[in-house]
């Protein structure tokens, strides 16, 4: 216990030292070598700009707008992608119906949809959400499909012998829980892709607010320290979302998988 604590403490220490070193080097390079705020804002510049966006309240609007876009896209991707993946994976032959459509649409990079997003939805939140949706829906479909395809026959047959016969019940009580690890992995991938699409969509002016939009806006004003603030925020938020999701899923939904090599 004590030794373990010590080790943990030492590791934390190493991490802190490493981080501080990078920050110090960054500051020195910016101050002494580059000496140009446009090319490389220093750490202090960034911190000051950060305090600035907190003070004028822009940060909260931007974060909430971006999260709104993200949520619209992710929820839509989930409620459309999950059933499609389930139908493709469970009903024999159904994948022949969906496969051609998916294989045509999937290779199109999500950002290529931006013009249509603007034509269809205008410069709205829905428009940004749509681009996120396009990026997120395919990983969810495909992972749900694979998860359902790899449901062990033994579980399905055990359920049948116990009187669980109808497709609806077999899906709900056997296939879905069994495929959950794969679906959860799909949602995580989808969130990563969706986050990227979100930034790009906002940059293209699909919306008039949000973290991605602000990067572009400050770039036009040549305020690269602000650009960097928003970059770091995007990275940090993406990390937090992923962590929270994983924590929730592992703790609540996949408790039964403890002891399985991930």
């Amino acid at each position, binding site marked *: 216990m004590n030794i373990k604590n010590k080790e943990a403490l030492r590791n934390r220490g190493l991490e802190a030292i490493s981080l501080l070193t990078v920050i110090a080097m960054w500051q020195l390079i910016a101050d002494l070598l580059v000496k140009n705020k446009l090319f490389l804002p220093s750490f202090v510049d960034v911190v000051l700009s950060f305090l600035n966006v907190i003070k004028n309240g822009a940060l909260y609007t931007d974060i909430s707008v971006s999260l709104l876009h993200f949520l619209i896209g992710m929820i839509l991707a989930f409620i459309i992608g999950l059933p499609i993946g389930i139908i493709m994976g469970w009903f024999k032959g159904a994948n022949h119906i969906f496969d051609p459509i998916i294989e045509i649409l999937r290779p199109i990079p999500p950002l290529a949809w931006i013009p249509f997003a603007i034509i269809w939805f205008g410069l709205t939140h829905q428009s940004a959400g749509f681009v996120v949706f396009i990026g997120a829906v395919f990983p969810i479909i495909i992972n749900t499909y694979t998860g359902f395809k790899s449901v062990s026959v*033994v*579980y399905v*047959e*055990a*359920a*049948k*012998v*116990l*009187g*669980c*016969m109808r497709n609806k*019940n077999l899906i709900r*009580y*056997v296939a879905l*829980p*069994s495929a*959950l690890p794969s679906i959860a992995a799909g949602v995580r991938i989808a969130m990563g892709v969706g986050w990227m699409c979100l930034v790009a969509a906002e940059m293209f002016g699909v919306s008039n607010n949000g973290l991605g939009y602000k990067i572009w806006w400050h770039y036009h004003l040549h305020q690269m320290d602000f650009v960097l603030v928003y970059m770091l925020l995007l990275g940090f938020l993406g990390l937090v979302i992923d962590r929270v999701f994983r924590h929730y899923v592992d703790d609540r939904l996949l*408790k*039964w*998988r*403890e*002891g*399985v090599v991930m």
Partner: protein
Amino acid sequence: MGRLTVTNVSRTFKKEDGAPIGALDDVTLEIKDKEFVCFIGPSGCGKTTLLRIIAGLDTPTSGEILLDGTKISVPDAKRGMVFQEYSLFPWRTVIDNIAFGLLMQGTKKKKAIKIAEKYLEFVGLEQFKNSFPYELSGGMRQRVAIARALATEPQVLLMDEPFGALDAQTRNTLQHELLEIWGKKNVTILFVTHSMDEAVFLADRIVVMSARPGKIKEIIDVDLPRPRDRTAPESNALRNHVLKLLAEERER
């Protein structure tokens, strides 16, 4: 009631290249209510196939099976099954696994859990009520699987080498427990095994099957009084008899 009539059941599978392979060939057998029948035979002789057909998970190529005069076609809770592989739902706790069949029958959750608790007690695993299957040993898992199969009160219990993966000690204990349950529950048991010792210890009758395609080679009545003594000379004689029959099959 759990009287099974197996008439002229054959099952052929098609290989990848379309060539047929016979798994069961013209199996005819009558199993009385509350009888304990063991099936023994070389690997691949169709024991699992026969059990699956009786469960309703597979359909025979020809022939039919009646349970108390009614033809079997689809699975239902009248025939419980314990599989050769571990088949507990890993995402459900022990108690939820046992209650599953009851819930599927529409029993209210509270009542289902109550009944499940009774069966959990039956197999002596009360303190693992809220554990997940990964937390159990192999023997415990099979105990839970048996409890799960019994909870819906099936008339016939199909057991496919349920103790095959267990060590001899655990195996003996579970055999005793199974006989105890069988005595209390009045259920017909069809039990597949590779072990003549197990067959001689458990069965009223032993069905010895021949190698592919599976046929019934001989049906042996085990008229030994229970509780049986594994080391009694009569037991030994029976074991040797079964051993001889199986050796003949291996030579073919």
